[in-house]
């Protein structure tokens, strides 16, 4: 049984299942909800299967069709990929459950195929072993995401989608140019091979610049974040959740991989890492301040994403001396942010669904009627603020530890300040849960599945605070952070 379990090509299933599911949903629009849910659950099962394989046998490597790089498509999964895949599966399930109740009939037929394509693209991206595949999955992901944003219709959503599309394409093209140069320079697109072959050269520098620029644009790092708030704020709630939780993380994941495997060992100069850290710090402050200034709930959450992405980049300047700790921190922050932010957007969706608007100042009537949603928002907020016990706290703690061992007081200050600002904007919303408002407002009921989906995600973000030891040991499989240094 165990043997059979390990022989199934789970990784391929991870990509093919959602793509096939998307096609079927497209062809069979009547049962789209059921089909979609089945596909998502099957995909999640595949993640468990793959996890089983990786935990038992170590790093997973699979050339599809036996072609091998550079022409064929290689699949590669280590602890880091597995974590990302699990995150995608978990968030995906909750969002899928939420979506069955959220969308109207005519929207479901469009939502499900697009979402399943997006899921397939994400899985493929996390499993990719070569940089060109990454480009293709980027594009698939990007196009599906843009279409999903446009799903809401209306001026804001279409404008947001358009902005997003332009930014995504620009980022992809920059990245592709980088791929071209890398291939020209070192003759392969396989990440593992590249990491053996690269050496300092002008080509490498050009590549570094182009790829980083493209990926930063896609990750929406300050000051390239301009497209994110309109897109994330105007999309339908589950789509916002997907974008903020998963899509942004995908490009960060690639940047992380490239940096770890290709650039970091070669680039002696610390200025690039410092620059990334600086931008991250600026993002934390700027995003938080902007979030605090917003009067609309979804924009607030979107700007919070801008800020939280900044945290991830603080790991770059810290990695030089405290590699494992810093990277673990970034990854942990990314995952807990995914759970928490998805929960937040879903909660916001509930509030909008119930009250018909997302003006923060008028939320009081709404929040009190939806205690579960308020709870979800609050729990997610705890993680975003980095308060214990939550995944966000663990991530922040590790990051602080890394910064403190190197006495990077500037970054420490940024982290602390970011936490304070986060507290301010989270409680700006939560304060309305406790006012004495008359309930005279016109309102619709919110299906229980929508409330529970948000709450489950938020509880996941909290629970992550207690799972640091197993999760970090899982990430360690395959030694993705390269250096096996001893912790202080």
């Amino acid at each position: 049984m165990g043997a059979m379990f390990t022989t199934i090509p789970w990784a391929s299933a991870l990509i093919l299942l959602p793509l096939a599911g998307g096609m079927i949903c497209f062809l069979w629009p009547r049962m789209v909800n059921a089909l979609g849910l089945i596909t998502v659950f099957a995909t999640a099962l595949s993640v468990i299967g793959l996890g089983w394989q990786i935990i038992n046998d170590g790093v997973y490597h699979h050339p599809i069709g036996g072609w091998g790089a550079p022409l064929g498509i290689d699949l590669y999964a280590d602890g880091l990929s597995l974590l990302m895949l699990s995150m995608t599966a978990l968030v995906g399930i909750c969002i899928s459950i939420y979506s069955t109740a959220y969308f109207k009939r005519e929207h479901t037929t469009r939502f499900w195929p697009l979402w399943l394509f997006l899921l397939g693209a994400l899985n493929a991206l996390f499993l990719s072993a070569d940089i060109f595949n990454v480009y293709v999955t980027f594009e698939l992901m990007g196009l599906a995401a843009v279409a999903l944003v446009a799903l809401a219709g209306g001026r804001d959503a279409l404008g947001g989608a358009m902005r997003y599309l332009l930014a995504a394409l620009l980022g992809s093209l920059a990245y592709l140019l980088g791929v071209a140069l890398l291939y020209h320079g070192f003759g392969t697109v396989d990440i593992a091979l590249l990491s053996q072959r690269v050496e300092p050269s002008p080509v490498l520098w050009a590549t570094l610049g182009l790829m980083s620029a493209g990926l930063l644009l896609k990750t929406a790092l300050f000051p390239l974040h301009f497209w994110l708030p309109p897109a994330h704020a105007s999309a339908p709630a589950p789509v916002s959740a997907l974008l903020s939780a998963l899509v942004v993380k995908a490009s960060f994941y690639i940047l992380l991989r490239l940096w770890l495997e290709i650039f970091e060992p070669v680039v002696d100069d610390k200025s690039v890492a410092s620059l990334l850290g600086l931008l991250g710090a600026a993002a934390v402050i700027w995003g938080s301040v902007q979030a605090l200034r917003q009067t609309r709930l979804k924009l607030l959450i979107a700007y919070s994403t801008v800020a939280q992405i900044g945290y991830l980049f603080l790991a770059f300047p810290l990695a030089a001396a405290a590699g494992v700790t810093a990277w673990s921190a970034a990854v942990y922050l990314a995952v807990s942010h995914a759970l928490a932010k998805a929960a937040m957007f879903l909660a916001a969706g509930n509030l909008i669904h119930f009250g018909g608007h997302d003006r923060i100042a008028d939320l009081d009537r709404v929040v009190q009627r939806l205690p579960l949603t308020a709870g979800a928002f609050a729990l997610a907020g705890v993680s975003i603020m980095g308060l214990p016990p939550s995944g966000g706290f663990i991530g922040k703690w590790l990051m602080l530890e890394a910064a403190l061992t190197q006495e990077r007081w500037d970054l420490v200050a940024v982290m602390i300040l970011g936490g304070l600002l986060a507290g301010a904007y989270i409680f700006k919303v939560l304060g309305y849960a406790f006012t004495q408002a008359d309930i005279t407002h016109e309102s619709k009921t919110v299906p229980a599945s929508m409330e529970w989906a948000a709450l489950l995600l938020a509880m996941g973000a909290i629970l992550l605070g207690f799972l640091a030891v197993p999760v970090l040991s899982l990430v360690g499989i395959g030694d993705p952070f390269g250096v096996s240094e001893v912790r202080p």
Partner: protein
Amino acid sequence: MNWDAWLPLLVILSSLLPGLIIFALAEERVRLRTVLNLSGALIKLALVGWMLWGVYNGNHYETRLALLPNLDLVLRAGPLSLFFVTLSAVLWMVTTVYAIGYLEGSPHRSRFFGFFSLCVTTTVGVALAGNLITFLLFYELLTLATYPLLVHRGTEAARRAGRTYLAYTIFGGALLLLGTAWLYSITGTLEFAPQGGFLNGIGKEHHPALIIIFILLIAGFGVKAALVPLHGWLPKAMVAPAPVSALLHAVAVVKAGAFGIVRVVYDVFGVEFAADLGVTGPLAWLAAFTIIYGSLRALFQDDLKRRLAFSTVSQVSYITLGVAIAGPIATIGGVVHLVHQGLMKITLFFCAGNLAETLGIHKISEMNGVGRRMPWTMAAFTIGAFGMIGAPPIAGFITKWYLGLGALEVGQDWVIFVLAGSSLLNAAYFLPILHRAWFQEPPDAWPEEHNFGRKETAWALLLPPVLTAILALAVGLLVTLPFSPLEWAKLIAAREFYQP
């Protein structure tokens, strides 16, 4: 199955689980909610009693869960933790009864009692924390659990107070996080150890950093302990319902901060090491200043609860003062005040709540002759007030006695003058209240009188303050009996702080 290892966790669960169930209860299920509340409180009391007996006989109770690599979540029941746990368990019980009476018929009770239970859960967690990170975890949770209680009324004033509270506490939490992480990066451990065992091996070059860490930690805890100038939130927080104020001032928030200071000085740094660093002296001065300042401000408040709040600012710093004087006897005085102040202050707040709830009295200027209308309530108030002044044989006297002796013992005679000044000011702001209540003629009509038949007020409102007042008197009168707070504080000092 070794139950000893899970007892601390069970103590926490005994209020956590009822709290979570209460959240899910419908508003009108009063009976079930009451049963849940009270049974949780009783179970907790029983567990705590069991552990008290065990620890007295030298047992150890420790729950340990992995939180991070090399960093565990530790719940440990030592004498000091149990001291605080017992206080919370007993006063939780009393306050629950009071809250049930106080909130009868008001909206959002499920929410209230849910957060109420969470609040106690986190307080007990703070008490049982066996290392700094566990402490930090529960300390931050405490902030989150008390916020909904604070703004429970939902008025604009309540929301403003809530914002102020958060601004202070989240800032304090950030300082604490920074200090904790920094300490960890230097030492690689955060375990509480008597005499700050793990810091003794730290080289001289780290001493400046350690001083800053001490300041950070004390500032972080000082926010909740309302050390001047970090006390601003406390008087504003008076908009909360009376049981919340009572809990806030006597058990949960303020006390958690003071307890944190005790932990930092004794179990993180170690009192001798802290004295070597030269940080206890300034802390003592700050505490002394807070004591005087709080009393001075209290003089000018007409709002009863605000006056009591400033009185808390002053009184809680006795604990800090006792700890910072850094002698065995002063330590006993400081530690024992954790319980003494709790008993006295909770009595005063219950009484203030009774006045507001029964007669609509919120201001001291409205209190004329109230002693004739509500003799039992005001008798309890009188005991609390005299205790605060330090009149023998009430609990507050014992504290001042030990603080004074402790200060003499280590040659810090100036503390005596601070104590005297504080007593004088306490008398100056409590005696006029008592004079009004007992000796002025009552007005023709009270501001907003509720009818309780022949009784002076509802039983659930009357019994708690009377009980806590009797306790405050009893712990002073029966101070030499075993298991009295003072004897237990001596046990703590002997076993944990000043081991031979």
